[in-house]
């Protein structure tokens, strides 16, 4: 095994690992500061922040240090490499680099959105000089008026690390951003008439180590130190990007991608990044309802739940008609399991079907060249399947029913009058059922609808259960390749709504408070394909479930 020495400490790196000095040092917990280097982008070694002393250990044990400091990001760590990042020489170099970076930086931290999560602040505090020797006026460039629909550029704050430029060239492939002029006139700009409006544009805001690129959506909304982050998963498509949900006072302010090599890598698309707004929609269903002949007769949770339970039970016992449920691909695995196992325990011939899986267009792969052709290797994919958990719900359904019944088949059976009670789980923020499809439930005696937005089927509903969006729930979703990840609750839903798992927990008369963990261990022991859910790695970056079984369930 190749051994690298970092500040006197030996660390072994994998024989096939291709690490640079920054990554090798990170293995022993030594931070080498860097601005321009990013693990997902090419190396330019232009910021000079990661300058370290590097040497080689010769076979006879002597160490030959290189006379100059070298950029850590550009220097591969190999067997016998000696990295020194805490010598006075390195510290002086960092101070000098930061001093140059701050020469023209406006230091408008109080009005800058990045303050609090700014690498310029952090590194100045940790490695900087602490005072400025500049007595001359700063070279301050005017801000750009428009560079894209979602992003804004404060030119004066930029430190020219060119991460954003490389991102648009290497990951989105659209190459809108570029460096114009040279020397101290250098600035980031777009080609005239080609704004940064690609579907991945929002990532340049996260990539920017300073406050130069800001998100218009989040601009001036909150100071970042007020935000509380929760690790979760984006539910915009079946890619299932790992994200953090940032909230304050029960209000979500932004979604940021969380680096997870098992899931999507480092980035996320704008559709997911800005696609959580329905959570705070004023169109949300806000109270549970029992409707008798179109009139609301009760708005009390306990009454609605016990009435729904009694209706399901009565139909199951009478046995003249069947009970049925539509399990939406927006449900978590736990929710699907509670509902499916409950209905099957009421009546073994209960019909379970997969809810409508919304497909929009085709999978969109990046990078794309100017003509729109995909360039290999693919670095990011926005999937056409716009639901987070088809694979997980499918695994639960096939455990209970063998073949998975499609939604259309259930609609056909329903219009034939086969069902006496139907439980419809929604959860798709866009409409998931049309007026004509909803007609199939017009003759069903009991229609229980669990959803957070109004849909045509509410017209025929006898019980309405207002549920939560993905930021209000907890559970497992399984993405397109069988990766199970946890979505976590970060905000409370509006008054009158309840998270789906709680609705189902109380509907099925389980005792006590909702314990999603308990349900998960039931699933892990009950469904072999989902046995991996008991793996503690689920709480970190997810568990890759048996892909063969997940694919077979297709």
């Amino acid at each position, binding site marked *: 095994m190749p051994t690298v020495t970092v500040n006197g400490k030996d660390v072994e790196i994998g024989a096939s690992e291709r690490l640079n000095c920054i990554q090798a040092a990170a293995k022993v917990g030594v931070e080498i500061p860097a601005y321009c280097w990013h693990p997902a982008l090419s190396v330019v070694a232009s910021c000079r922040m990661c300058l370290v002393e590097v040497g080689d250990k010769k076979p006879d044990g002597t160490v030959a240090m290189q006379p100059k400091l070298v950029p850590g990001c550009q220097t591969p760590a190999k067997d016998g490499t000696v990295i020194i990042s805490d010598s006075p020489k390195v510290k002086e170099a960092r101070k000098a680099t930061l001093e140059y970076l701050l020469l023209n930086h*406006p*230091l*408008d931290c*109080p*009005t*800058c959105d990045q303050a609090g999560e700014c690498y310029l602040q952090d590194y100045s505090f940790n490695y900087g*000089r*602490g*005072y*400025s*020797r*500049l*007595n001359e*006026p*700063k070279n*301050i460039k*005017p801000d750009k008026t428009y560079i894209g629909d979602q992003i804004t550029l*404060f030119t*004066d704050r930029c430190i020219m690390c060119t991460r954003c430029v490389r991102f648009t060239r290497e990951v989105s492939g659209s190459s809108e951003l570029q460096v114009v002029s040279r020397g101290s006139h250098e600035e980031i700009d777009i080609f005239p008439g080609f704004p940064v409006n690609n579907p991945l544009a929002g990532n340049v805001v996260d990539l920017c180590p300073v406050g130069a690129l800001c998100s218009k959506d989040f*601009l*001036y*909304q909150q*100071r970042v*130190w*007020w935000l509380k982050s929760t690790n979760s998963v984006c539910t915009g498509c079946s890619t299932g990007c790992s994200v953090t949900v940032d909230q304050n006072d029960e209000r979500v302010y932004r979604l940021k991608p969380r680096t997870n090599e098992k899931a999507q890598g480092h980035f996320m698309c704008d559709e997911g990044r800005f696609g959580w707004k329905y959570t705070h929609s004023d169109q949300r269903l806000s109270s549970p309802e029992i409707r008798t002949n179109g009139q609301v007769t009760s708005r009390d949770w306990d009454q609605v739940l016990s009435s729904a339970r009694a209706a399901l039970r009565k139909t199951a016992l009478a046995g003249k008609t069947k009970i049925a449920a539509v399990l939406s691909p927006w449900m978590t695995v736990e929710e699907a399991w509670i509902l499916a196992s409950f209905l099957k325990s009421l009546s073994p011939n209960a019909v379970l079907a997969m809810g409508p899986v919304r497909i929009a267009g085709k999978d969109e792969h990046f990078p794309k060249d100017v003509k729109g052709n995909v360039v290999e290797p693919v670095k990011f994919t926005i999937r056409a399947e716009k639901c987070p958990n088809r694979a997980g719900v499918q695994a639960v359904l096939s455990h209970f029913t063998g073949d998975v019944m499609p939604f259309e088949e259930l609609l056909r059976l329903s219009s034939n009058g086969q069902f006496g009670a139907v439980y419809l789980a929604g959860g798709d923020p866009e409409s998931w059922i049309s007026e004509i499809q909803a007609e199939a439930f017009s003759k069903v005696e009991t229609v229980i609808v669990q959803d957070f937005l109004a849909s045509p089927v509410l017209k025929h509903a006898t019980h309405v259960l207002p549920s939560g969006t993905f930021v209000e729930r907890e559970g497992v979703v399984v993405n397109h390749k069988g990766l199970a990840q946890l979505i976590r609750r970060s905000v409370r839903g509006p008054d009158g709504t309840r998270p789906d798992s709680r609705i189902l927990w109380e509907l099925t008369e389980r005792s006590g408070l909702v314990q999603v963990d308990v349900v998960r261990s039931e699933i892990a022991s009950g469904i072999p394909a989902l046995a991996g859910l008991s793996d503690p790695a689920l709480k970190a970056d997810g568990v890759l479930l048996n892909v063969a079984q997940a694919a077979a369930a297709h």
Partner: protein
Amino acid sequence: MSQTPKKKNVRWVEEPEIGFWESTFVPAIMQGLKTTLKHVVDRKPVTQQYPEVKPELPLHYRGVHRLNRDEKDRVKCVACMMCATACPANCITIEAQAAPPEWPDRDKFPKSFVLDELRCIYCGMCEEACPVDAIELTHIYDLTGESRADLLYDREKLLGVYDRTKNDPRDPVRTRRGILGPAAEFQQLPALGPATVVPQSDRSAKSETAGVIRTTGVEGQR
């Protein structure tokens, strides 16, 4: 006493012997009556005749807040929310908005600025945190309102306090760097020190504001 261990630096003093007159308590009673008599004769009041007479408050008194205006009569606040962050009573609520294009020197300004004067504990942390000297505490102490909502001071009300107090000699606009207010008026200001020591050989150590970035000449360019 004999049981107490002797300690260094502890000196024991004996109680003085009580004399004859002292044991009759007569001199002490006379002393007390003298004080009483003095108060009977003295007609000068010791209480302040508020509200007919307003009290002379110390210069560092912290009363109702104001939001200062800049030289163009705009609200000086830049909506950085440092005051709301520093506030221990959580009484400041600010909503920021991007500055209009006519304000090239500003990035943002407060769309709404609400300060709950009832919730405030008048500690002055907001004033201290403000990087642009926009929020200041004045000498106004007698604020009244007919409801709680009346004492939720919004941006316009706080600017109104500024208009009322800006010419009051006790509430000067404290915009000069290093001078906090009349209470802190020193004859000689201590030199502004940098966060860390500047080497004496350094060029900036010789300038009068060592370690402070001078941005003169660029104002209005942004």
